[in-house]
């Protein structure tokens, strides 16, 4: 019998206990994976080739302050800027507040260049250019409300004192961000009797290298004016929203530590229980000449095997969660919990570590015991 078989047989000897430990470690580790995935999605907005080129420009005081619409022409003249698009969070409600979704007014002339990663439905671009009340809607949102191209819908103004009627002229597909609603800024501008303001501008740089230069150029151009700007990359802009939530990192970080500690306790007490029952075998192994480190290795190996099985359960649960509609359950707060291979591999590693650490104390104790003592300690 090899050491491997020995470990495997021992791990599966008390099937119920092993199953319970595996499940306990599995659920805790699943929680850990989920927490870390949510945290890293919040803190590291995915940077793509396109998003690395986009720059958000807003009023230096905050998003509730507006910039004049006249800035557009000035921004377009900044070197290396390919396009400048006004964009305004409309915050309109569809029928009632609980049907929440993101809706923005955008500059229709630049919209299609600004988001090259969106796959628009046929004819969407032409119709959006021609029709003032046109709207383009993400596929997920179309499906959620059962809309189809050609439908007329009304959004009730919550921030703006106007209700706007739209005609959906097309949809767009995108792997993660496909539940927003876009319409023309000139329509909002006109409904607000030539308002002349907009919340943000989005710039498209001609290369990623030009981005820092553009940010400096824009902010210094408007410094000491009535409307100072704050420009930042798309990912930095998204991070400001996360920082508004409060100290998410501290909360999730400390909970994760507690979860790891709980797993250690659970695995440790199980291993202690197991080893206590098997002291006689440990003594026999020693009596027939197995050295101390082999005995130690066998016990540690068993613990690692059990917690590794727990990690596998955890990965299975995480993959199951990744395929469910998290966005709906959380009201769009978390779009998706998809851990990805790196986090899963880390989870497997943590699982093995937990097994080893938890078994270390009882294993050292058992392997260090003299044969006599071990034999006598039996009940």
């Amino acid at each position, binding site marked *: 019998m090899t050491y491997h078989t020995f470990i495997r047989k021992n791990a599966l000897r008390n099937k*119920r*206990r092993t199953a*319970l*430990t595996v*499940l*306990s*470690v*599995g*659920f*805790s580790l*699943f*929680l850990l994976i*989920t927490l870390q995935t949510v945290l890293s999605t919040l803190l590291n907005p995915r940077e793509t080739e396109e998003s690395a080129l986009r720059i958000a420009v807003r009023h*230096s*005081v*905050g*998003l*509730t302050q507006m910039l004049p619409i006249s800035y557009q022409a000035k921004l377009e003249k900044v070197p290396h800027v390919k396009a400048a698009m006004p964009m305004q969070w409309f*915050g309109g*409600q569809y029928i009632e*507040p609980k049907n929440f979704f993101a809706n923005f007014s955008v500059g229709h002339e630049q919209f299609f260049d600004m988001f090259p990663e969106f796959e628009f439905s046929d004819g969407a671009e032409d119709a959006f250019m021609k029709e003032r009340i046109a709207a383009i809607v993400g596929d997920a949102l179309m499906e959620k409300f059962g809309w189809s191209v050609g439908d007329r819908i009304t959004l*009730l*103004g*919550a*921030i703006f*004192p106007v*209700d706007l009627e739209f005609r959906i002229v097309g949809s767009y597909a995108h792997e993660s961000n496909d539940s927003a609603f876009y319409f023309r800024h000139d329509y909002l501008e006109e409904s607000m009797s030539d308002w002349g303001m907009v919340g943000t501008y989005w710039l498209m740089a001609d290369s990623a290298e030009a981005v820092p230069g553009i940010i400096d150029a824009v902010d210094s151009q408007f410094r000491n004016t009535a409307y100072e700007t704050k420009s930042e990359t798309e990912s930095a802009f998204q991070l400001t929203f996360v*920082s*508004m*939530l*409060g*100290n998410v990192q501290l*909360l999730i970080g400390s*909970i994760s530590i*507690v*979860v790891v*500690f*709980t*797993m250690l*306790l*659970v695995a*440790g*007490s*199980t291993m*202690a*229980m197991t080893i206590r029952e098997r002291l006689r075998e440990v003594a026999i192994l020693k009596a027939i000449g197995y050295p101390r480190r082999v005995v130690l290795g066998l016990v540690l190996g068993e613990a690692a095997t059990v917690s590794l099985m727990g990690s596998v359960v955890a990965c299975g649960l995480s993959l199951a969660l990744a395929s469910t509609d998290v966005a709906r*359950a*959380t*009201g769009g*707060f978390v779009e998706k919990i998809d851990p990805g291979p790196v986090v899963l591999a880390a989870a497997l590693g943590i699982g093995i570590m937990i097994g080893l650490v938890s078994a270390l104390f009882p294993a050292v104790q058992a392997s260090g015991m003299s044969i006599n003592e071990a034999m006598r300690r039996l*009940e």
Partner: protein
Amino acid sequence: MIIPLQYNLRYLRTRWTGTLITAVTFGLVVAVFVIVMALAQGLDRAFVTTGDPLNLLIMRPGVQSEMQSSVSIDRYQIIRTLKGIATGADGEPIVAPEVLVVVNKPKLPDGGKSNLQVRGIDLKTLELRPQVRIVEGRMYEPGLREVIASRLVSKRFQGFRLGDTPIFGGGTWTVVGLFDGAGTAYDSEVWCDYEELQQEFDRRGGYSTVVARATDPAAAAALARTIDEDPRLKLEVKTEVQYYSEQTETSRPLKLFGTFLATVMAIGACFAGMNTMYGNVASRAKEIGTLRVLGYTPFSIVLCFVFESVLLALIGGIFGCLVSLPMNWVTTGTTNFQTFSEVVFQFAVTPRLMTIALGFAVVMGVVGGLLPAVSAARRPIIDCLSKV
């Protein structure tokens, strides 16, 4: 016949290491649950305790928060003439216009910026909101560019201590007083004279909201109806209680998060508890056999071990509650995305929350203990006794 409680207590004491580890496992689950829920509750409390059922908040129809509302001056004048409004000490109706703005200010200690809500009030507002008390310094004087700040804001933001001179809206102001909002949403605000705020932020055209105090609940309902139906006004009325309970939406993701956490952790802890109990039961086969011989029924054996498991979980639950109690004094903040400004609040570990947590621990104990207890009771007596 029921097996005496002493039996379980003594066992748990003899096997104290095992008891401790299992209880701590349950305790940590309870602690995480209590702390996350205390966060959500603290946030809710900031909103819920803010409203007064007699105060009517009059806003532009369809807005989600007072921040987005606007009410013109002539409409305010009309509201002042309506019936059912309480009269103040000066014989005037208690109706106060309010102007709300958000300023972006550096926070303590790291200087990261956050949005702070500034409320322009009328001195009448103090009659509308008796919870707010000045605890240091004095009330502002209209016309002198003075503000009062909540004590929590002065601790959380730079430049809002007594005597500081914060700059916003172009002007320099002086903090002349600190107030305590008694855990309400006002604890996240800075107050000053509404007319000065209107000038600084170029809001001369109107106010954000108008707050009116009704004489009694019946008058409040009647007044709300009158305002709703008045074609000159075209405004929406909510009682403050209604308005602030709508704002508790902010804590929804947190509650969801807390429930998810607690559920998953509890499943893990239940498996661990089951393991301990199976172990406890297995090592006591002989004792169980003896109890049966003495005439205890299988049912009383089940009861005995479920009880032991519940006891373990309860010890854990009490430990968890005790560990989370100090959080009560921790102040934190988040953003209310309906007003885009920071809400400062304290964790609220309430007796109710702790009761729920202990109930939760009992459920974990029962779930973890039931199967091992049943397996103990179903073992034939001979088997039990013949076991080494």
